[in-house]
């Protein structure tokens, strides 16, 4: 087998010549392929592709930023579909020399960005009609509902988004992170919008700033009782947990997850109403 055109990493949403065997690098792309009913075309996934559970049974070509050239090629894909951060660049350069078509899907951390991402993947695979119908039926109405809830009068809470934190260190989302973008989706202001990237923060900073919400993002969204009460005495701070992949993956489930969380938080913020 040899590929028709010389491959290179493209970021354009144009239909490809052959999308019968797809290697996926990125959990949200895998989710989108399942959503579009194209899961039978997936021949390999990366380790961030954990949803739906059946995706975990597919052959793994490593972490999205540590892909294996030969491992990818051994699955004989006709297309590599990845997030824009797939890598390492040296491996992509090797695949490019082999001539394997690769598309890196642009990532934009908004509800509109998610829908664009779905449309882009669908267009590459020739499934645009299906995507349009899906978006029209479910995601667009959810986005409208999300916008409405976010625009509710007086809703401008201060929040912190903490990643995992099982190791004991609180790693908070700063500016230019998917975490801050998620906070923006639920209309919350990020307490740590001054720091850049994901950075460890001190619990004291959080306690003294008295945010309205501390949101733990972790796989499975489970939270222990002591964690739930850890910021309780800071006067009005509420602790909730959300699933990492669902929220920060910016895949098809993220809009619903944001809306659910927003409704839950608004319910907690005004228990008397």
């Amino acid at each position, binding site marked *: 087998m*040899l590929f028709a055109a010389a491959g290179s990493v493209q970021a354009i949403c144009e239909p490809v010549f052959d999308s019968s065997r797809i290697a996926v690098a990125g959990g949200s792309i895998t989710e989108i392929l399942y959503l579009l009913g194209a899961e039978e075309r997936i021949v390999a996934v990366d380790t961030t592709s954990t949803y739906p559970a059946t995706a975990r049974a597919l052959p793994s070509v490593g972490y999205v930023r540590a892909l294996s050239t*030969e491992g990818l*090629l051994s699955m004989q894909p006709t297309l590599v579909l990845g997030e824009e951060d797939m890598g390492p660049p040296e491996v992509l350069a090797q695949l490019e020399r082999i001539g394997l078509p690769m598309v890196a899907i642009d990532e934009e951390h908004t509800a509109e960005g998610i829908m664009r991402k779905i449309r882009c993947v669908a267009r590459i695979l020739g499934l645009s009609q299906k995507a349009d119908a899906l978006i029209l039926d479910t995601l667009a109405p959810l986005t409208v509902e999300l916008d409405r809830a976010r625009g509710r009068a007086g809703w401008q809470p201060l929040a912190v988004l903490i990643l995992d934190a099982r190791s004991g260190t609180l790693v908070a989302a700063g500016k230019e992170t998917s975490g801050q973008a998620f906070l923006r989706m639920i209309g919350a202001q990020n307490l740590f919008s001054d720091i850049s990237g994901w950075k460890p923060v001190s619990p004291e900073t959080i306690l003294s700033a008295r945010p309205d919400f501390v949101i733990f993002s972790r796989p499975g969204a489970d939270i222990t009782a002591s964690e739930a009460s850890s910021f309780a005495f800071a006067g009005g701070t509420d602790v909730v947990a959300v699933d990492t992949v669902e929220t920060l993956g910016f895949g098809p489930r993220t809009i619903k997850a944001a809306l659910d969380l927003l409704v839950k938080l608004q319910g907690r913020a005004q228990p008397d109403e």
Partner: protein
Amino acid sequence: MNSAAQVLHARGQPAWSAHAALACAMLATGVLALLAGAVDISIKSLFHDADAVLQRMILLEIRAPRVVLAACTGAGLAVAGAALQGLFRNPLAEPSLIGVSSGAALGAISVIVLGASLPILQPLASYSLPIAAVAGACLVTLFLYGFSLRYGQFGIVTILLVGIAVNALAAVGIGIFQYLANDAALRTLTFWMMGSFGRASWDTLIPAVSLMAVSMLPLFALTRSLDLLQLGESEAFHLGIDVRQVKRCVIICSAATVGAGVALAGIVGFVGLVVPHLIRLVLGAGHRYVIPASALLGAILTMLADLLARTLFAPAEIPVSLITSALGAPFFLWLIARARPR
């Protein structure tokens, strides 16, 4: 002097056959490493099958540079390990244990992180990364050497303690860069530090391998001086060795060898410790045997480690340093146990 010469020569015959055997083993390992991998490649179809274009490309563009990089890095680390052990007169001087590899990694990481925020550096990355890695390795080696000049000959325990301190210092530097790094650079760093030969390509390989070759060659020429250094520095001086010159050469050459390897492959641990020891067990301590044989065995072991790293969990890969350290660390413990008087 006479008896020493006799001892060195008495081993001449078996040493040459051992070298020949190692060279054959290295070639065999190289061929095995070229033919085995996630993608099935059969020799027959390579030559007879018109459709084998892809397989030929995988062989030539992906596997071959990778195997060459593994072999050269392994040889370089083993030779640098053997030479540093000779220089410090200490069997535990190993590039990653005493901090030379960390120094190289610190140099390289500074380029990865700063390069990500200074786009001007980006086109220069293929040159600035190896240069920074070599500079970092040189800095650490010079520091170690200066420390040993100031505070006298290192005992086995001292060099390990100094190594811990140097590694800790390098870890601070690496930590600072990790803190400064953006999300993407951070995740790149994590895997980069664990070592992999998967990033090899001919255009980055050729400058690095040339540097390794150029910096390794003087070490092969210094074997007699290293032997005489074992008697002590003043003894070596009276036997006509320009001790300062030899030391400077060993430090710069081994640091450049390690730095060039680290720049492309990240940190690959314990090769420089295990290989020279295995060779000494069989061929004795004469550097004229230890250095060339270490180069061969280092290449063999590293190619095998890389082969395991890319086939054990295919189609995914594990970092090669997991394999070398999993084999090397127990060996290290065994060395310590053996050295302790009961």
